[in-house]
């Protein structure tokens, strides 16, 4: 522990000195640390594979179940039913089956592995700027400011934009924060455990193709298995025929999948998300003048827009390298960016530089001690910053979102999530103070300290570290 402390102290001091004396663009410690890709320090709760090319939610167990079910059912179909049907009827049957199967698999993998449209979190400067604006709007300091919303008129409808406390942005319309993945997702539809990912703007069309093709596949298999049984039962008994076919799985899945496809077809044609439909945002029951401002008016255009519209690129740049002199993320696990933050005079974090300097005197030892509990002493920078101002404030008061149990149909999930969205929006206590306020405020020290910032184990460590601190 002590070694870690002295090391991180040395690290901090070294970086301070190099900032003062010289103005190099390339800094010495850049050579020391290997270049990390942005996905390695992604703040959300996602899993990345293939060096950032594949992105999934944290819990993928049900996704593997989906895969197994599809592979097993199709495997049984091709092994037991197809030979008979190809001989008795036509060899086109296995071919169509094969094509459908490949299409289903392709769209499933595409839905599961792609970025659903995650909005990257605000940079510390942005967050600071927003905080300042909100504070001005609120008319000075309020210990518990009211929930932060912004109203916007879209196509004649008033839409409320909510402030996300985790991502520190005002969510664009139709975006929502997924509590499972801990990300704001554009045009958030729902989090699908069967697919192991959120369904949002960038992968909705793949998801729809997946369930549509899966419906066709299950109906196809079901129909031909029944045909097989009927043809066989002419020869042998009905029960022996039944034994040789994977009917049961098909029977149950047909109705749920077909139902789901039908539901999503309705959603696409009216240009709504599952989220909006469940909340009844645009239902006429809310008011006579309530209508969907995003709808293009006719079904055909809505369908085209959803399925054939341009595919926006991923905003999170998973495979990009982290620039140590221009940090854009303020993630909890990356040691490099904070060093970069204290580095050159042209860094974006100049405000934080000041924060660090002034608060250093107030809390040198405790801050650095805290840092030792996290890797590389990042928290030194972060805690100092949060204490000095909003440059990076650890998200406070976030309720720990429970892991939702996978439900049979995907669209039930957002129901669970809604209950968690509102508590998130309840603004949390002190700690988010504007950078403009005097740096040395002692009460900000406390504010910075008692918050289990997130559900990460890393933060649990830091909390433990803080507890140790207070005992010192």
């Amino acid at each position, binding site marked *: 522990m002590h070694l870690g402390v002295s090391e991180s102290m040395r690290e901090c001091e070294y970086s301070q000195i190099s900032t003062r004396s010289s103005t190099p663009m390339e800094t010495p410690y850049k050579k020391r640390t290997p270049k990390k890709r942005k996905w390695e320090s992604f703040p959300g709760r996602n899993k990345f594979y293939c060096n950032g090319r594949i992105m999934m939610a944290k819990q993928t167990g049900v996704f593997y179940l989906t895969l197994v079910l599809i592979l097993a059912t199709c495997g049984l179909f091709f092994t037991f039913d197809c030979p008979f049907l190809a001989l008795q009827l036509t060899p086109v049957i296995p071919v169509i089956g094969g094509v459908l199967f490949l299409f289903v698999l392709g769209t499933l993998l595409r839905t599961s592995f792609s970025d659903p449209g995650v909005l990257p979190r605000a940079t510390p*400067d942005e967050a600071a700027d927003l905080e300042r604006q909100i504070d001005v709007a609120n008319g000075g300091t309020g210990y518990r400011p009211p929930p932060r919303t912004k109203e916007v008129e879209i196509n004649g409808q008033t839409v409320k934009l909510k402030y996300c406390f985790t991502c520190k942005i*005002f969510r664009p319309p139709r975006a929502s924060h997924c509590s499972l993945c801990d990300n704001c997702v554009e045009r958030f539809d729902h989090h699908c455990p069967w697919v192991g990912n959120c369904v949002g703007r960038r992968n909705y069309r793949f998801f729809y193709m997946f369930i549509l093709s899966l419906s066709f596949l299950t109906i196809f298999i079901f129909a031909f298995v029944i045909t097989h049984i009927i043809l066989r039962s002419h020869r042998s008994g009905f029960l022996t025929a039944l034994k040789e076919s994977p009917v049961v799985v098909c029977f149950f899945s047909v109705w749920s999948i077909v139902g789901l496809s039908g539901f999503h077809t309705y959603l696409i044609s009216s240009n709504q998300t599952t989220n909006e439909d469940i909340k009844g945002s645009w239902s006429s029951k809310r008011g006579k003048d309530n209508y969907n401002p995003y709808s293009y008016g006719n079904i055909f255009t809505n369908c085209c827009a959803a399925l054939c519209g*341009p595919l926006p690129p991923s905003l999170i740049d998973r495979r990009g390298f982290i620039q140590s002199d221009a940090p854009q993320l303020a993630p909890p696990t990356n040691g490099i960016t904070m060093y970069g933050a204290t580095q050159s005079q042209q*860094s974006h974090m100049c405000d934080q530089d000041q924060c660090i300097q002034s608060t250093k005197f107030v809390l040198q030892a405790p801050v650095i001690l805290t840092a030792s509990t996290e890797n590389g002493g990042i928290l030194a920078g972060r805690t100092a910053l949060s204490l000095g101002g909003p440059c990076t404030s650890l998200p406070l008061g976030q309720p720990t979102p429970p892991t939702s149990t996978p439900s049979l149909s995907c669209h039930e999930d957002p129901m669970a999530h809604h209950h968690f969205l509102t508590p998130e929006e309840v603004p949390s206590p002190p700690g988010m103070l504007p950078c403009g306020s005097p740096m040395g405020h002692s009460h900000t020290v406390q504010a910075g300290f008692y918050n289990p910032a997130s559900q990460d184990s890393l933060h649990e460590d830091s909390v433990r570290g803080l507890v140790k601190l207070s005992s010192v």
Partner: protein
Amino acid sequence: MAETHSLQDMRQQATVASKVFIQRDYTQGTMCQFQTKLPSDLEARIDKQQFEETVRTLNNLYAEAEKIGSQSFIEGCLACLTAYTVFLCMETHYEKVLKKIAKFIQEQNDKIYAPRGLLLTDPIERGLRVIEVTIFEDRSLTR
């Protein structure tokens, strides 16, 4: 003479005084559009018309990227038929326009903003949330 700087010089000599963020304009819906109003912090540095022109051009470019027309329709259908493998060799229309936008911003920075001690950051680097305008305070000026 002290007024004009190249982008490189500025980055090396100047200190960052502050940053201004141009937020998104959602009145057209979820389309990527930015507010054209000149923030008060920039009023001293740049002409209102010039700034609005820049933002309006950016808005038009983004609208072009997200346009649902025959081209995007054909691209979508082709992609679906080839199981989206076509994007391994081809760029999407959106990506092509993003490249155009990057070039445009570079150009604007070189010609208009750098000489005034300002720097526009490509919104794609900020997740298309804001246009970040960095205001530089030149050391040579303050000496």
